[in-house]
């Protein structure tokens, strides 16, 4: 499993417990709690899930089962600049796959991975709803529209 060791410091632990408390430690709010927790830590390391399980009085296995069910949740820390390539149908038929291949080639990582220097991580997403701009790539919060494979290097230049 995840080899990245993550240790919550006391402030983080308190913050996480506060999050659970703000949802009344209600196990029905698990997904909302996980959203908040991922907002704080950027991802959901095992230790965070253990705390959430304990606070919400459910098994860690169940929390893990939920985390691995939803693609929005991640157990891997994201890169400094998370890159998401839209693979919605509109982007796909307008060449999204070629753009993805180019990112893979240049960064030398696969989808779901982070570059060894921690700078970029790459993921696919399904439709940001900007189909008029297909194919679409997001780096952080910035949306790049009508991306062609030979425009990939130009995008990455912005983050050199």
């Amino acid at each position, binding site marked *: 499993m995840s080899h990245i060791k993550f240790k919550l410091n006391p402030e983080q632990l308190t913050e996480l417990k506060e999050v659970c408390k703000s949802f009344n430690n209600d196990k029905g709010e698990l997904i909302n709690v996980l959203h908040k927790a991922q907002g704080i830590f950027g991802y959901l390391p095992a230790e965070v899930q253990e705390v959430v399980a304990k606070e919400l009085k459910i098994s860690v296995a169940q929390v893990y089962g939920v985390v691995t069910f939803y693609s929005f949740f991640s157990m891997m820390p994201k890169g400094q600049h998370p890159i998401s390539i839209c693979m919605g149908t509109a982007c796909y038929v307008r060449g999204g796959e070629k753009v993805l291949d180019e990112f893979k080639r240049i960064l030398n990582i696969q989808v779901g991975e982070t570059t060894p220097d921690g700078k970029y991580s790459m993921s696919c997403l399904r439709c*940001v*709803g*900007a*189909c*008029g*701009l297909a194919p*679409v790539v997001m780096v952080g919060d910035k*949306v790049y*529209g009508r991306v062609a494979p030979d425009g990939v290097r130009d995008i990455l230049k912005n983050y050199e």
Partner: protein
Amino acid sequence: MVKVKSLADLKKIKSELQSKMELREKSENPEKSVQVKVAMATCGIASGAKQVMDFLIEEFEKRGIEAIVTQTGCMGYCYAEPTIEVTVPGKDPLVFGYVNIKKADEIIEKYIKNGELVEGIIPVNYETIEK
């Protein structure tokens, strides 16, 4: 804040609002008041609608044009985002597509000030249920 307590209340508020909005649009400053709506849905924002809106608000102020800039939802012309709808008093609303800062500047200078049309008009292609 008002609490709407009955249907009559709601209707009263509505008629007040309608006349207010009408006033806003037509009678107050009929020669000068321009209404601009910026389509600010995800696709619009992704293609820079926010910057255009900021630019418009700033520039109207700087150039002394009385105008109301509001945001609105998706107009449906995703291929031409950012899109804005400009209503110059006395004229039909016009929708412009692919509006960047440069185009916005052009729209202010040519269309709003002088009534000249500029490129990038998008013909409205739907009916609303009001008619």
